[in-house]
């Protein structure tokens, strides 16, 4: 009977493969996610049955308690999270995954340190276990610290004892060779551990350096590149799981881990391409907010809702450009009402321009607008909508800044090279924003000061409601 246990792992691996495949297409994605979850269930059940058959005695309390506690915490976090906080949560979960792999590796090594009567494995087994545990620790701890830092960077800062600290972005070029040296020193420590597997100093040094590596890998990266980094860290957590599979000689960990590692890497490249960046640029060139924000020297007189309402009255075509501000003020329903009013009352053509990284993650705007029942066909991706701006009467920018900042075209500064929504090509631009302050990348936006731009200063929800009322009164 026991000999057939690996068949469960085979089924689980097949479900993961189908799951990942289906997750890549809009129509099949929900099914793909279910396949993945089923694969995980099969893997856990197989493991429990395997342990029961192999040993008979089981540490049930510990195992069930762990499974239940983890599931409950995970479910609560997933249910309670606001749509705006989704990217941070994905980063946090990812860090936990990396930490879990690293902890398994540590547990495997620690039992020989803790109980000297346990016979150390010998020969090939020892070498494989030590090398795999070392690599799993390197990648796993790095993923944990890197993901945690990425999470705080996505939040923009961290609150300690009621004080708000902004997450720093810091990365001089000399840091790059340091990263290489630290990685090599971990390799050296792993090789040294083969001859002395129970040396605690080596063990703590590997853990410490790996944690440090995660931090200095993410520290120089800021702003719009954070989703790419989270995707790369996701790939790494898969690799960590695969290395853990080598330690305990388990096929499903190796297969699932390397699948995630490889597909995560491909996804990282796809995301880079969508932003017109290369991975080495993202990783080794400090970008997107050096911490110094441009000084605001100019001012602009704000408009009011009635003025804007009268102006959109004559418009034939209006393109709405949503950004992070829409997510923060949760005004997607008001935005949808605005679009409907225009169509019904004035017969205006209304479309939505979606920047690939609008908000804090790809697809953020789609999620919010879909929640407000905006038809999917009206959400147009950047490359398709940009040629339409010159013939567009009014572009309504709601809480977006960097994604339509013409400074990106100049080839200089933190935004250089980032593709943007060509909102500035529209005949009139209406911008709803709380102030003239700079966006995530810390660059002043020329678009705000142009003559054809009307600024509506205020919270997105309040402003959209005011605008809708003004339109109804016309």
């Amino acid at each position, binding site marked *: 009977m026991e000999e057939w246990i690996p068949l469960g792992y085979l089924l689980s691996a097949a479900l*993961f*493969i189908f799951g*990942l495949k289906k*997750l*890549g297409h*809009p*129509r099949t*994605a*929900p099914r793909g*996610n279910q396949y*993945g979850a089923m694969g995980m269930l099969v*893997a856990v059940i197989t493991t*429990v049955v395997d*342990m029961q058959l192999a040993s008979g005695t*089981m*540490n049930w309390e510990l195992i069930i308690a*762990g499974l239940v506690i*983890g*599931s409950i*915490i*995970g*479910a609560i976090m*997933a249910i309670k999270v606001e749509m705006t906080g*989704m990217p941070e*949560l*994905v980063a946090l*979960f*990812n860090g*936990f*995954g990396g*930490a*879990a*792999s690293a902890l*398994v590796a540590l*547990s495997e090594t*620690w*039992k020989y340190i*803790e*109980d000297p*009567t*346990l016979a150390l494995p010998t020969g090939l087994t020892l070498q494989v276990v030590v090398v795999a545990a070392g690599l799993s620790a390197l990648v796993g701890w790095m993923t944990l610290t890197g993901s945690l830092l990425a999470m705080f960077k996505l939040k923009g800062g961290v609150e300690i004892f009621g004080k708000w600290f902004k997450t720093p972005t810091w990365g001089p070029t000399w840091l790059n060779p340091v990263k290489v040296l630290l990685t090599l020193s971990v390799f050296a420590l792993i090789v040294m551990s083969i001859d002395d597997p129970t040396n605690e100093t080596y063990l703590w040094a590997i853990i410490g350096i790996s944690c440090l590596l995660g931090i200095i890998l993410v520290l120089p990266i800021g702003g719009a590149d954070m989703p790419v980094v989270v*995707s790369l860290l996701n790939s790494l957590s*898969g690799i960590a799981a695969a290395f853990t599979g*080598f*330690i*305990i000689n*388990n096929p499903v*960990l*190796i297969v*699932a*881990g390397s*699948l*995630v590692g*490889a*597909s995560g890497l491909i*996804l990282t490249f796809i995301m880079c391409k969508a932003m017109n960046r290369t991975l080495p640029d993202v990783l080794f060139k400090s970008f997107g907010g050096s911490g110094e924000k441009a000084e605001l020297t100019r001012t602009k007189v704000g408009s009011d809702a009635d003025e804007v309402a009268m102006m959109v009255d004559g418009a034939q075509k209006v393109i709405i450009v949503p950004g992070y501000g829409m997510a923060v003020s949760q005004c997607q329903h008001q935005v949808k009402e605005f679009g409907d009013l225009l169509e019904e009352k004035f017969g205006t053509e209304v479309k939505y321009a979606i920047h*690939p990284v609008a908000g804090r993650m*790809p*697809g953020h705007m789609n*999620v919010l607008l879909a929640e407000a029942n905006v038809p999917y066909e009206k959400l147009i991706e950047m490359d398709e909508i940009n040629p339409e701006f010159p013939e567009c009467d009014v572009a309504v920018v709601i809480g977006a800044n960097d994604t339509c900042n013409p400074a990106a075209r100049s080839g200089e500064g933190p935004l250089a090279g980032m593709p943007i929504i060509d909102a500035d090509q529209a005949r009139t631009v209406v911008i709803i924003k709380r102030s003239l302050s700079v966006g995530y990348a810390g660059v002043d936006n020329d678009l705000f000061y142009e003559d054809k731009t009307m600024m509506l200063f205020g919270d997105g929800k309040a402003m959209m409601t005011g605008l809708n009322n003004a339109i109804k009164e016309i």
Partner: protein
Amino acid sequence: MITEASLIANLTLFMLAIFLGFELITKVPATLHTPLMSGANAISGISVVGALLGANVAYQGGETLVSGLLAFVAIVLAMINVVGGFAVTNRMLNMIAGKKRRA
């Protein structure tokens, strides 16, 4: 017990799965980048299998309380990753793909 044969079998699996992973994801619309990342991330919680085995082995070894506790923490963290990851992916997809189908 790791033998030459089992190591080579594992390395083969490792390599083939990496190639498969590269081929699996080809063109993905930007809308699905985050759900795909989140779903793949949940799958990387597979280390729960290693944590389960670790918790049990450490327990049976006798004087290995700390190792057992480390494995326990690993189970908790991996399960947060798995359950939270799949649940949050499901929430996102319901909003994107679900609406699209009904529309």
